[in-house]
């Protein structure tokens, strides 16, 4: 009784949360520092123009955020001209800003003028290594095919990414691997990789430990930052966004990026932009790092944990409600059983990140909490379905015969004999699902849905292990608690007769 009330409570909560923000503007951003900061700048600018707005931080890669904008889940997000022409419009050769604006129009999307800075791709190396090997241009890499190249997955896959770059420069590197951006910097510093891709405004480049290789053949297109917005956004909001045109140059952006990585506070970094002193000179010294604020952290932790539990709880309950009946059907011989186990098994083989990306592109889902819940639900199905089916199949045929011969109807056989006897196996399946679910739910942060993944995603974005641990440790503890909780539940739900040690005669 209490449990059901609790479940319905959280379902209700979920219903309340989602449409509550329908009235306000939503700003999206991709999962890296600069995009976060630009998103915060847009939020503040729109707030100053009188719009209540919400920033869905770090929603993911280009495809996800673009889909969210296109389907109306967000109103605007920061993008780069190079990405727009190559990835979104798939145009060949350079096109002007004006042409881009015209080609975006049929999508219902508008584009502000350039904000000022050019955040193009670049290849970087540890400065000391580059100096030693006398490498200053990308062409110089040709003489060193043995250098280990660690590229972000996005750069590896982009049409204007690594492959055409290598063929343009005639590079034939022996080791090319895909590594997440900030982990790539760690690899470079630790001497585990030698070359990686970077953005020309990366905060990491401020310190002077890395050399940016000159793009001597002019390969990289320009990546001027702009905002993309929906043409159906309020005119006043569009006007407000356009006031940012030409206001942010490279120095300012690098400065804000490094401020963001130092303070781990994007709002704070973005607020620099609105500080008149900063506008005059971007050079100045950074803030001294502040001491760790425990009250703030615990407050945030409580929020993340609650959200995490909500994601896990709702998706798990749905998975039980659907998975157990499916498992019962699958326990009976026949082709339906193969179909059910086959499909749920196949879902499990889709990498969780890919599943999330797939679901985001489904029309009715998109960037919202339901999408994360659907993904977690699908992920939780297999262990529950499979364990329910095997638990029921494992019941000895002599007991099935007894149950039938007593004159119990099929439903009564299931309720009074089969389900209690399979309870241990079914609970084990639910427990597996719950534990997987606690871990996988951290991915919800990738589409801006919070939970304990939020500090992990932002930690990865700003290259800060401490922030990552703020999410990773509680998530691990939560998984242990779930495991422990199910241990107690076993005592409660598995009939005593099945827990007794077998009689030895």
């Amino acid at each position, binding site marked *: 009784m209490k449990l059901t009330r609790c479940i319905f409570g959280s379902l209700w909560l979920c219903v309340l949360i989602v449409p509550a923000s329908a009235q306000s503007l939503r700003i999206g951003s991709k999962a890296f520092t600069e995009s976060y900061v630009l998103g915060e700048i847009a939020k503040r600018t729109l707030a100053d123009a009188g719009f209540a707005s919400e920033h869905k931080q770090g929603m993911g890669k280009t495809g996800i955020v673009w889909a969210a904008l296109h389907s109306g889940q967000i109103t605007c997000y920061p993008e780069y001209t190079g990405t727009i022409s190559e990835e979104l419009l798939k145009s060949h050769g350079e096109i002007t800003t004006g042409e881009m604006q015209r080609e975006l129009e049929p999508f219902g999307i508008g584009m502000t003028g350039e904000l000022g800075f050019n955040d193009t791709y670049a290849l970087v190396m540890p400065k000391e290594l580059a100096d030693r090997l006398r490498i200053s241009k990308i062409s110089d890499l040709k003489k060193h095919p043995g250098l280990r190249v660690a590229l972000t997955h996005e750069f590896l896959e982009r049409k204007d990414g690594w492959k055409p770059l290598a063929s343009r420069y005639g590079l034939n590197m022996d080791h090319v691997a895909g590594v997440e951006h900030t982990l790539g910097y760690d690899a470079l510093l630790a001497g585990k990789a030698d070359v990686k891709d970077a953005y020309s405004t990366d905060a990491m480049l401020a310190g002077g430990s890395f050399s940016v290789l000159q793009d001597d053949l002019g390969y990289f297109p320009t990546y001027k930052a702009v905002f993309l917005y929906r043409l159906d956004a309020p005119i006043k909001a569009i006007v407000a966004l356009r006031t940012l045109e030409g206001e942010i140059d490279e120095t300012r952006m690098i400065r804000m990026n490094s401020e963001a990585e130092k303070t781990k506070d994007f709002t704070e970094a973005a607020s620099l932009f609105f500080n008149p002193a900063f506008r005059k000179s971007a050079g100045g010294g950074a803030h001294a790092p502040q001491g760790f604020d425990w009250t703030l952290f615990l407050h945030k932790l409580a929020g993340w944990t609650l959200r995490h539990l909500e994601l896990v709880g709702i998706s798990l309950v749905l998975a039980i409600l659907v998975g157990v009946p499916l498992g019962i059907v699958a326990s009976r011989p026949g082709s339906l059983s193969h179909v059910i186990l086959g499909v749920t098994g196949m879902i499990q083989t889709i990498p969780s990140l890919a599943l999330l990306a797939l679901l985001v592109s489904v029309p009715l889902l998109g960037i919202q909490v339901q999408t994360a819940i659907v993904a977690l639900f699908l992920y939780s199905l297999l262990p529950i379905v499979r364990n329910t089916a095997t638990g029921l199949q494992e019941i000895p045929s002599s007991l099935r*015969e*007894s149950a039938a011969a007593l*004159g*119990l109807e099929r439903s009564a056989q299931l309720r009074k004999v089969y389900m209690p006897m399979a309870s241990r196996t079914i609970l084990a399946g639910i427990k597996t699902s719950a534990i997987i679910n606690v871990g996988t739910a951290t991915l919800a942060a990738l589409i801006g849905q919070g939970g304990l993944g939020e500090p992990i995603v932002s930690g990865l974005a700003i290259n800060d292990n401490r922030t990552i641990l703020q999410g990773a440790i509680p998530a691990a503890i939560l998984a242990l608690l779930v495991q422990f909780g199910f241990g107690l539940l076993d005592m409660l739900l598995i009939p005593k*007769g*099945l827990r*007794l040690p077998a*009689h030895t*005669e």
Partner: protein
Amino acid sequence: MIELRGVSKRFGSDYALHPIDLVMNGGRTTALIGPSGCGKSTVLRLIVGLLEPTSGTIVVEKQTVTPADLIGIRRKLGYVIQDGGLFPHLTSRQNILLMPKHLRTAESDSQRRLNELCELTNFPADGLDRYPVELSGGQRQRVSLMRALILDPDVLLLDEPLGALDPLVRSGLQTELKEIFQRLKKTVVFVTHDMAEAGYLADTIVLLQSGKIVQHGCLEDLRERPANSFVTEFMSAQRSLVQL
């Protein structure tokens, strides 16, 4: 009374039971006997409707066994399977009272019936709240028997009720079963391997071989007027076992 008319059972291309005609009279005890795999359990499974006959009809207490009437017929039958078939997640009491509870029989009625059965089967009352794993083999058989008798069925079917027990317990229970059968005056059909047991407990013996009835009669008939050499061999093999 149970009647099998031209009943056969085929699994794939093999006949577990060739078409047989068999009448088991009401109020009498019939033993099914024969070598392992000859089709004894198959006969009982067909009567309870756990198997559908390949041919023929089965009539239990004037009611033809059809899939539609199965639930009703099964509630008039008490069936104890080869290894007891007690549900491990239920105590003895819960096992026995599963059906009365399901049928919402008045608590006081089923309690009275339970007490009678405990007395009939000689089952210690403190065993009622133990789980099957906490009982001895003989006690488990008694609980299975009580579960089969709780709805006061017209017919009692027992598949090797004493099969898995050690000889001492077994002979004790044989005496008890004989008494129980005499007191109940029900139609009883039981399966056994042991000719002495069949002769002691049953009025009529049905000897099966490879899915066919070889001889049907009392112990006297089988001993004195064997139908063929197989019956003679079977009887002498059993006798030599006893003489060992």
